[in-house]
């Protein structure tokens, strides 16, 4: 006779309402995570799935697990994931070309393997075991029960996993860190470099934009004392965007005629 955890006792009414509301939402979010186009949206949906899972845990009196689920997965892991997404800027234009040969085959094998592992683990934990019951497990309190198991029976596995994670973190740092061959130019160095150029003409920086008394917008070049516009006074960004007004519009009239 197989005993499922749910067969023991009946689920309280509020808990079942909670389940019937949240479970479809959670499944929908999980499916949406695979289907939405933007990477940030799918990360968000994943975070929502994590939160709903945490709520289920809490509803089943696994308080500590539920809270830790939020702190660790939603709070830390997903946040770091979001960080990377935002900084690297993963867009819809993700290339689907395999960069490593046979990546697709490897990933399918890995996915099937992982699925198999999950199924065996869960069935090992579920089938052929007598259900102890919540009240007995949580006798000393939920957190204490977990702490006792973690630090006595499973202490070796726990420590191995933490060592693995730390190694991974250090490895990632080593891979991402690049030794700078020379120190970065700071404001002071740039200032010294400007003065060292020989000519002191540009030492004070570029002129600021805008024509006095006619315009004071940043897309208008400054007029030099000679009446000529100074194109260097406009930000390179505006210039590249094409958002600047033609500087000859602001040349003094007589000068313009002379130029012709």
């Amino acid at each position, binding site marked *: 006779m197989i005993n499922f955890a749910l067969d023991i006792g009946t689920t309280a009414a509020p808990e079942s309402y909670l389940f019937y509301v949240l479970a479809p939402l959670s499944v929908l979010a999980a499916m949406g995570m695979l289907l939405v186009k*933007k990477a*940030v*949206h799918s990360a*968000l949906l994943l*975070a929502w799935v994590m*939160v709903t899972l*945490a709520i289920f845990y809490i509803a089943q009196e696994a*308080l*500590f697990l539920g*809270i*830790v689920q*939020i*702190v660790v997965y*939603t*709070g*830390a892991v997903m*946040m770091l994931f*979001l*960080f990377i997404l*935002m*900084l690297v800027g993963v867009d819809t234009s993700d290339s689907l070309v395999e960069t490593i040969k046979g990546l697709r085959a490897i990933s399918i094998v890995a996915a099937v393997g992982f699925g198999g592992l999950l199924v065996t683990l869960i069935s090992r934990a579920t089938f052929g075991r007598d259900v102890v019951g919540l009240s007995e497990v949580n006798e000393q*309190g*939920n*957190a204490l029960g977990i702490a006792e198991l973690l630090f006595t029976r499973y202490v070796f596995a726990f420590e191995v996993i933490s060592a693995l994670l730390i190694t991974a973190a250090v490895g990632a740092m080593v891979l991402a860190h690049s030794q700078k061959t020379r120190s970065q130019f700071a404001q002071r160095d740039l200032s*010294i470099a400007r*003065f*060292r150029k020989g000519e*002191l003409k540009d030492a004070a920086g570029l002129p600021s934009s805008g024509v006095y008394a006619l315009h004071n917008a940043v897309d208008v070049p400054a007029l030099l004392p000679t009446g000529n516009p100074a194109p260097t006074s406009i930000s390179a960004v505006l210039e590249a965007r094409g958002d600047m007004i033609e500087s000859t519009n602001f040349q003094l009239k007589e000068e313009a005629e002379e130029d012709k």
Partner: protein
Amino acid sequence: MSNAEIIGQDPGWVIALKGVLIFAVCVFLTIMSVWGERRLVARMQQRSGPNRVGKFGLLQALVDGVKLALKEDLIPKSADRIVFVIAPIISTTACFMAFAVIPLTGPVNFFGHETVMQMTDLSVGVLYVLAIASVGVYGIVLAGWSSGSTYPLLGGLRSSAQVISYEIAMGLSLVAVFIYAGSMSTSEIVAAQDQWWYAVILFPSFVIYAISMVGETNRAPFDLAEAEGELVGGFHTEYSSLKFALFFLSEYVNIIAVSALATTLFLGGYRALPGLGFTEQWLGGWFTLVWFFIKVLGFFFVFVWLRGTLPRLRYDQFMKFGWKVLIPFSLAWILVVSTLRVMSQKEAPPALIATFIFSIALIYVAVATLLDRRKVAKEKVARNINSLEPDFPVPAIPNTRVEQING
């Protein structure tokens, strides 16, 4: 009877009414604290602050709220519309949720029903507050990202990096409290402080918590996420109208929330000051609410005081302080505390405990001296480099004497 059992007996209408009351108190406190902060900071700068709307300007924050609500609600063209709308909602919801586990009073008579002013008493209540705080960061990060412009993105990243790093120090500072109280439930931690406040016994933890709660709430001098001089408004630059009001609200609710947690964990929560224990019975127990708010407002005053006194830190200094000072220090402190705790539980001889404390002090002095020496040596080198004159014409610094003259 423990708080959890008392709350377990609450009928539905008590729970609902308590929820509404706690929410209302939070909103009221927030509105008043906006006014209070402006008045206090103004006094610190010898100004008078808002004094036009209502007596002493008491209605100022209310009027500001109405004004914000009536403003045009803009969503930038380049913004991600859904996330842009969700972000302030996440932020505000999360900070209100923290109040669910904070015990505001001891046992009181609630319309003829014996209960405590606490929504729920989780056995991992403090962890729950931390979890909620980490969800609240999503509001800020998503606001920064979804605005679709540079400054909000930078502000959002800054503030989430900040909150995450200071949450580590905060969590570590709480470990000592858990060890001493033997529980993670807020009500039991309060109950465990009937003799001594943890702010006294675990003073280093209290200091670390106090520092990291300022970092956690993005307040001056750690308000780098909305550094006006650098990032315009930070993550909420593109927000206007009610959405901005929500962020504004959540910032102040957050301040009150971390202050309330600090009160609960370190200052004995709703309990009276030492020697005034008899007041806890006044008004059928409701007087404990007064004690609670006195303590919370004390923290709030410190927040304002910090803002009025200290300039903003540079970002790298701030992160260095969090990771290289607060976290290692709190780790070392946890080691000391847990050793002491185990010693006293196993009834070690007082001589052994004294020796342990003495050797810890010795190690601390040795390390501090070594670090200090290295710092002095480094400073010397730095000064030598700085005094080298550049070999190009530079304007004179007025009113300074220069030791070395060119040529």
